[in-house]
């Protein structure tokens, strides 16, 4: 097991690093094209959004607790609270909701 695990490990770590490293090392010039620049500008927000919705609603034990967590995160982010505050209070919201669901 240990021997074959090492091969798996090297394969996946190697390919993951290459995927991250090659574009960062090869693209050295500043891109001038307005449309490519705009595309790259929107990419992070699009990627994060696609990763978050609808996955966030399935990230906890109950849909209801996830919805509570989402609403809390949405409101706190809207009033410009920091990343930690938003993430932490969202967790608290989920925790409290699940406590209520289980024991009330």
């Amino acid at each position, binding site marked *: 097991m240990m021997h074959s695990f090492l091969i798996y490990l090297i394969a996946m770590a190697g390919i993951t690093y290459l995927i991250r490293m090659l574009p960062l*090392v090869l693209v050295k010039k500043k891109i001038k094209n307005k449309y490519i620049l705009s595309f790259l500008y929107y990419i992070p927000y699009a990627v994060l959004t696609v990763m978050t919705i609808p996955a966030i609603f399935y990230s906890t034990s109950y849909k209801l607790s996830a919805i509570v967590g989402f609403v809390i*995160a949405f409101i706190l982010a809207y009033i410009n609270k920091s990343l930690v505050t938003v993430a932490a209070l969202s967790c608290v919201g989920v925790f409290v909701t699940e406590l209520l669901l289980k024991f009330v």
Partner: protein
Amino acid sequence: MREQTSFVKGIKDGLPICFGYLSISFAFGIYACANGLSILQAVVMSITNLTSAGQLASVPIIAAGGTIAELLISQIVINLRYALMSVSLSQKLGKSVRMLDRFVIAFANTDEVFAVASSQEGTVGRNYLYGLILTPPIGWTLGTLLGAAAGAVLPEILVSALGIAIYGMFIAIVMPKAKTERPTALCVGLSIVLSCLFYYIPVLRTIPSGFTIIICAVIASGVFAFLAPININGEAQNDA
């Protein structure tokens, strides 16, 4: 253009990622060991890969004794989004970032590190980036260790609550931009629609999630790059 060069600012921005990772990698640690990996294997995998979805996908393949080709293809599909992020990050690097730095930074260019680096005004310098990438790998590895070692002991309700942490962080990153720039808000809206289509339509659901992320993000960004190109200052224009 202004370059963000503060190491301390980098550390400050990296810490929330570090804490966020504690909870996700904690879940990964539990999952990996429940599927037959040893604590050491789970931890070593986290140190060397630093990728959530890729690592999660690898566990069943390794557990089933799958082929290396299968493992490689799954990793390429799931992690190809990093190539997109690395191209985007390459445009964000300040003058102080040298060639050797790029090799190091690339290793830690995760979704969250990329998102935080992208959200800085102007360009990002090497000191800032080294500060930013210092703590997340520690959180990622430590969380894996804790999850693998003590996962079974922790009450399920705590694990469940921690599961939402990373998404809360994502929302906190996207919201300030979406709130002030209408094209970005619309791009986010289109991303939501596409993502839900790929999630809820049975045929589209069979597409691996790594691909779904790339397809949806490329369409949404492509549409708005065309409809609402950014201005010279690198901001989306509200008149679009």
